[in-house]
């Protein structure tokens, strides 16, 4: 599929279009928040606290009288930045490890890498985050590291699996005969062929990262005040939910819609990029 045919296929996939629209909405809000928000998120207005949604404050105001719509916009920035960098860490470290393991399949390197992966898997991500924060204190950076570490084995395993099946192909054999080394083959022939897999997994890890970031900042292990983040907004809302439900509802909806958008986009991309799976899934 190339050019217009690809475009048509993409547009005809309902989940891909819906997912992409939702994702674009929140990425757009995050980018826009750098230049403009309806109100200043740092501005407190105690007399105007806990107002329900209105024409002036679309999502209402929080317990300090801050505009929730603006905070959700800025919060998108935190969530997206943390999740994106965490996926970046996972890919940057996991993919080379997986490629190396596949190139020396069955060897000592392969064994060490895969057992190391198993070990990281054995630690639930939350425990890694807790360990890191117990030692280094809570911050957005530590949340990124905690989520990122967990992403490494995901990408390592995926690229190893994808690469292993490619190494048996004839065109790889041809490349070896022509004198290319394992590193060049991995970079020039294997990597482009597993790129699809990586993109699809990337969107899924991105959405998991957003959920993880929300959870970590909800328990106070992620971004620290005054940086607005969806998880923190929910933590602040918890004791006030009986009086002003809106302050809990909007940040939560933002999380749900972003994650839903990314998941739908991931599903749609998988169908589009891997027609074999599409047939199998039907």
């Amino acid at each position, binding site marked *: 599929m190339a050019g217009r045919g690809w475009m048509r296929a993409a547009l005809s996939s309902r989940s891909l279009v819906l997912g992409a629209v939702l994702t674009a909405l929140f990425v757009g809000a995050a980018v826009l928040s750098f230049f403009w928000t309806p109100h200043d998120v740092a501005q407190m207005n105690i007399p105007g606290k806990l107002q329900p949604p209105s024409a002036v404050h679309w999502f209402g105001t929080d317990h300090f009288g801050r505009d929730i719509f603006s905070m959700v916009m800025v919060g998108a920035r935190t969530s997206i930045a943390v999740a994106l960098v965490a996926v970046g860490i996972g890919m940057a470290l996991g993919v080379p490890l997986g490629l190396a393991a596949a190139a020396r399949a069955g060897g000592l390197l392969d064994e060490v890498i895969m057992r190391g992966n198993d070990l990281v898997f*054995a630690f*639930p991500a939350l425990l890694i985050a807790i360990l890191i924060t117990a030692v280094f204190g809570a911050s957005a950076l530590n949340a990124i590291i905690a989520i990122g570490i967990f992403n490494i084995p995901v990408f390592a395993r995926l690229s190893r699996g994808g690469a292993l099946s490619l190494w048996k192909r004839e065109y790889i054999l041809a490349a070896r005969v022509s004198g290319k080394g394992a590193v060049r083959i991995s970079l020039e022939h294997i990597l482009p062929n597993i790129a699809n897999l990586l993109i699809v997994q990337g969107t899924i890890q991105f*959405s998991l990262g957003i959920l993880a970031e*929300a959870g970590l900042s909800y*328990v106070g292990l992620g971004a620290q005040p005054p940086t607005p983040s969806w998880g923190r907004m929910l933590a602040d809302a*918890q004791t006030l939910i009986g009086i002003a439900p809106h302050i809990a509802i909007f940040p939560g909806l933002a999380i749900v819609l972003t994650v839903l958008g990314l*998941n739908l986009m991931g599903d749609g991309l998988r169908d589009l990029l891997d027609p074999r799976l599409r047939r199998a899934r039907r």
Partner: protein
Amino acid sequence: MLRYALKRLLSLAISLAVASVVIFVAIEVVPGDPASYMLGINARPDTVAALREELGLNMSPPERYIAWVGGLLQGDFGTSYTYRTPVAEMISERLWVSLPLALFALALSTLIAFPAGIIAATRRGSKWDLGIMGVTQLGIAVPNFWFAMLMVLVFAINLRWFSAGGFPGWEAGLLPGLKALLLPAVSLALPQASILARVMRSALLDTLDEDFIRTARAKGLTRRQVLRRHALRNALIPVLTIIGLQFSFLLAGAIIIENVFFLPGLGRLVFQSISARDLIVVESVVMLLVFAVVVVNFAVDLAYAAVDPRLRRRR
């Protein structure tokens, strides 16, 4: 089978050994001097020295590590600095909340996911299938702690059917205890049930496409008989793995949910210990959770091999 089990047992032991080293280094070596970290910067030097003595910090790190692991193996988890009680006692108390919660959530998740997945797979492409897939897609996207807050809003604050949090203790009776755990368990179970239903559906779809299913139908079995005797049994293998993985996620995920509902479980213990800088408790609880995760995964691997003889031979 025995050889396979021994091989897995060896890798289990290695995983635990490496994990314990990582946790020990992270908590006792990286912060420099744990004693002054725990007491804060304003501590008097003689207090720090006394704590150093108590924690055995005058030994070298390898010696301390061996002492720690040796203690763990004998059920001695050290003494909490803030509470002045043995950590093992604190953990076993909290475990009576965290473990039932995880099991309750796992049971709920399985009870929801199995029928949902089976209905979706057997009526592939129908409205039921689409509806179930839509709901599970949403269930995966909802953060469990937010769902928990919404349930508190509806069932505790508005309808007043449940209390918004806290735990009466099992002394108060089985029913009050279960009632206090119901909302937390439902919020933990929702995302897990969504994932499990999807796995169940796709595993069942894969099996239903197999030739032996057609053969079974051809020899005159009804759809229901085929489903029960052949399809479900084969689809169960991937589903079992996910259930095993989920149990460990539920134990760890309970850390957040326990905080929403103010449940006195392991999760709250960890957070209280972090803010009190009680590293000894953090260290032991994290090690215990990792131990639980690794052992559950080991058990799942064995169950797997018992169900499917092919797996034994391949490795």
